[in-house]
């Protein structure tokens, strides 16, 4: 089955001929319904509730298929033979991961925006409990004995250990940054945790945090509920799902390997990312990173992974390329055992082990085998479909549509444009490569074609962007159409331009991205005593010696307004020798607690370093009169923004 983005686009053009300007969409998608958006355009004004399936799994008896639908906040239960709906089970806000208990009687769902786990009784298909966990739970797994439930928390960077019967949290294990996906080994003794953000740099880098990323797979002893190993993932920034062969001898993790130390202008030399998998286990020996890309045939953003029951093939969903990449395991093992690595920079390597590239829908995510092991199911998040692939022919047998709106709304089309890689040169990257799950990547980049190592920039988050223009650290782009259009096309994609309709929809989507809940704010908006003291410091007009602080040197002057930006540029004394200018756009403060590193070049690894290291002359606000207690208070307040 061949899908064409442009055929979809053609349909959209027919639906949207009256598009004349950028729409302003701010409404969240409502669960199970339709809501009108405020827009001054004549185009489809509706925000539609798409299912957006992200994960799928079969019941132990193979009779049901559970589909985790992030867009409608529910688990859809389908008959596994006919794929007809049995029941939709509402869960929490923006669910990201789910799994069955070992006896199959309970289905656990991690709800990212509610910081909660929903427990579904699989006989009644009702939510029977909702357990609070830490910040942004993204994956949940029960141990073999049914004693503990392990929950990966993306924002608090840990794995919570809960009593599997009561949900009471017993402890949290330190994971890597952005802990998101937990996979048990086949024998259940170990759990493997992957992370969507790189770990913080260990050492300060006065030159501008120009370091390659380092990540890890955190290995947990399930019985003892302690971390027993951390497999280093060198130069890998983002890791997604892991899978094991049935015999447990082969493990595979999907990775995104950025090349952030060379200007992104070198996209034509495959200079942006390598899309890779890491193989590990007894069949492999020392873990090996293998590229999936091939010249002009990239496998952008590997996400979901499955190994066939006979261990002959590995299947990897590639979000941006909208394909499933199939690896011949025997050839891959032969390759790594006979060819000396490293292989990541070698675009010819994948020809040695990639057996097929199967086109699927928009933003393919979770994968699973049918109980008989013959077919592979793929959840296409941005199509609301599930592709069924015959693994003997590597052809799509059937596409199961999930119930929901059929028209492609402006936001949906914009989101598809955001996640696809097909606009960039040779289809190498998409917006979501750096804005992982429409957020940020925790990285600094050498973006501009102005020489190696010049103008290193921190990647700013894109949530709640409305009224924060201009964009770029130098404030060079006055609005989102410029930022997403000519700038992206010229500097990043180096390929075809968006048509005006797609650009309009893309901008509408980006502008619609809401801010996730702030975990440091108390309910009701009250401040803790430390936050309250910090707010007073943020707003102060005199220093501790009673001297007036010049207006331009007060925190609240530049970081004014509800989003903490005056939308003006200032020189705060952070210009490096490698920077072309010290005049910098004032960044918004939205959810600043979670978006490290900081400053325009990411040189401050923590909020504290902004002032303890990079503000020696008080140009970035008057702060050098503060005691350590007071600086801590100021930071506690900033975390509430």
């Amino acid at each position: 089955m061949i899908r064409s983005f442009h055929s979809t686009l053609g349909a959209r053009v027919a639906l949207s001929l009256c598009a004349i300007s950028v729409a302003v969409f701010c409404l969240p998608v409502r669960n199970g319904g339709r809501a009108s958006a405020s827009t001054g355009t004549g185009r489809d004004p509706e925000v539609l509730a798409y299912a957006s399936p992200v994960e799928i799994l079969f019941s132990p008896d193979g009779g049901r298929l559970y589909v985790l639908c992030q867009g409608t906040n529910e688990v859809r239960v389908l008959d596994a033979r006919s794929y007809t709906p049995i029941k939709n089970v509402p869960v929490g806000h923006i669910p990201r991961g789910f799994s069955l208990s070992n006896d199959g009687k309970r289905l656990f769902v991690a709800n990212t925006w509610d910081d909660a786990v929903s427990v579904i009784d699989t006989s009644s298909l009702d939510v029977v409990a909702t357990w609070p966990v830490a910040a942004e739970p993204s994956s949940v797994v029960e141990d073999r004995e049914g004693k503990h439930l392990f929950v990966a928390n993306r924002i608090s960077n840990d794995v919570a250990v809960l009593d599997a019967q009561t949900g009471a949290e017993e402890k949290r294990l330190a994971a890597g940054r952005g802990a998101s996906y937990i996979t048990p080994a086949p024998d259940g003794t170990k759990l493997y945790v992957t992370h969507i953000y790189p770990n913080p740099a260990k050492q300060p880098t006065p030159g501008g945090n120009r370091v390659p990323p380092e990540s890890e797979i955190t290995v947990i002893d399930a019985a003892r509920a302690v971390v027993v190993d951390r497999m280093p993932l060198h130069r890998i920034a983002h890791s997604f799902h892991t899978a094991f062969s049935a015999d447990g001898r082969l493990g595979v993790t999907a990775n995104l390997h950025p090349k952030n130390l060379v200007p992104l202008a070198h996209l034509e030399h495959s200079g942006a990312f390598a899309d890779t998998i890491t193989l590990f286990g007894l069949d492999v020996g020392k873990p090996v990173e293998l590229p999936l890309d091939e010249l002009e045939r990239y496998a952008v953003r590997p996400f979901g992974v499955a190994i066939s029951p006979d261990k002959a093939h590995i299947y990897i969903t590639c979000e941006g390329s909208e394909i499933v990449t199939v690896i011949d395991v025997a050839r891959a093992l032969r390759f790594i055992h006979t060819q000396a690595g490293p292989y990541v920079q070698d675009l010819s390597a994948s020809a040695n082990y990639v057996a097929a590239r199967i086109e699927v829908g928009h933003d393919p995510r979770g994968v699973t085998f049918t109980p008989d092991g013959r077919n592979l199911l793929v959840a296409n998040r941005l199509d609301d479909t599930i592709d069924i692939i015959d693994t003997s022919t590597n052809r799509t047998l059937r596409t199961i549509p999930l119930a929901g709106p059929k028209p492609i709304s402006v936001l949906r089309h914009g989101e598809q444009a955001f996640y696809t890689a097909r606009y960039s040169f040779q289809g190498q990257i998409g917006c979501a490569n750096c804005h992982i799950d429409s957020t940020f990547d925790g990285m600094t980049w050498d973006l501009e074609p102005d020489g190696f190592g010049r103008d290193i920039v921190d990647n700013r988050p894109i949530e709640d962007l409305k009224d924060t223009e201009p964009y770029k650290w130098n404030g060079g782009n006055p609005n989102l159409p410029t930022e997403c259009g000519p700038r992206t096309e010229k500097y990043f994609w180096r390929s075809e331009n968006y048509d005006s309709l797609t650009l309009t929809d893309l901008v509408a989507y980006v502008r619609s991205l809401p801010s996730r809940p702030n975990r440091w704010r108390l309910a009701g908006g009250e401040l803790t005593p430390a936050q309250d003291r910090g707010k007073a410091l943020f707003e102060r007009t005199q220093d501790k010696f009673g001297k007036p602080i010049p207006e331009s040197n007060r925190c609240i002057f530049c970081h004014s307004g509800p989003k903490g930006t005056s939308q003006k540029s200032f020189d705060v004394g952070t210009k490096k020798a490698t920077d072309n200018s010290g005049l910098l756009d004032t960044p918004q403060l939205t959810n600043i607690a979670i978006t490290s590193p900081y400053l325009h070049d990411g040189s401050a690894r923590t909020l504290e370093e902004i002032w303890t290291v990079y503000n020696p002359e008080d140009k970035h606000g008057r702060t050098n009169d503060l005691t350590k207690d007071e600086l801590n208070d100021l930071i506690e307040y900033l975390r509430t923004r």
Partner: protein
Amino acid sequence: MNQKYAIALIVAALAFSAPALIAQPHGDAHSHPASASATKVSAVPGMPKFRFENFTTANGLPDNHVFSVLVDGDRIWAGTENGLAVYENHGWKTYTPADGLAHRAVLSLALDKRTGDVWAGTMGGLSRISSGRIDSFTQLNSGLSNDVVYGVSVEGEHVWVATAAGACMLDLHTNQWTLYNERNTPMNEIWVYAVSATPTKVYYAVWGSGLLEYDQKTGRWDKYDDPDGETEMVLFKDQGLIHEIVTSVSYIEKDNIVWAATYFGDSRYDGRYWHNFLTKDSGLPSNFTNTIKAVDANRAWFGTDKGLAYYDGANWAVYRPSLTTGKPEMTVRDARGKLTPIAVATAPAHNYVLGIDFQGSDIWVATAKGLSHGILQP
């Protein structure tokens, strides 16, 4: 800080940074793993005898100046002047700043028993060692009050820290740091040497400001001082803390007993009565006590500049290289004050003792010239 304190503080600082200068001269014939068997001389009933095996740079330790020791099951962590060493599977592995350790000099250690993470207080910040990964917190990159971390103790999701510029607590759930100093506690001086944290109470040993108690339930602070005031004279024995310069504290929560060490003697407090320990009227080998480690309400170990001491509630035993000959010695002082030398073939690596921890019935001792493993003898 008055002049008297300033002088004492300098002396202590010298002792801490260069303990060999203060320690008594001794031979080093016993500084290698002991090979001699235990002697047959019987000790005073109940007083343990040990065969000491000593680790130095000669057998893998990164430095002979060992500030702290931590038992973690079969693993032994040693905080040395030149890295954090862990003894596992009969070999030493050393973590240094190149691995992410905040500083090479590791002053204090604590184990998070729930997670297995080890926390190390160093001369340059606080480090968490979690299955090989080291995360370091400093006064520049975090809310840590000061980079010189003399003490650390983990209780639940809270990491309590004693630094050269106040105390602080890191909440592992919120990542919030709370600082405790002269502005929000009865802490007159802010040079905090040690901490002992439990779910009910947290005790801080403050250099020149007595013993601070934090009630976890009420959030209130209390302070225990030397009733004699700022003096080295003991006018009111057993009426309170023996001295304001408190170097170490060990709290037994189940018995509500706190043991406190100072450079001028030691104290035990049961919530109502104080008992002071001085060389002149106990078996304590020196009033200059670096560390104290309680076993329970009645028993405790003392690390002094003149040897390792054990108190069982009535009798004392001192283990050390002889102050005159350097030969291993064990001396028992019974409740009546009678001294009995016990013939032994081994002793701790040095008599300047900085750290103590227990491994079942064995004891591990950090000294100025090596790490010692005391293996209980039948």
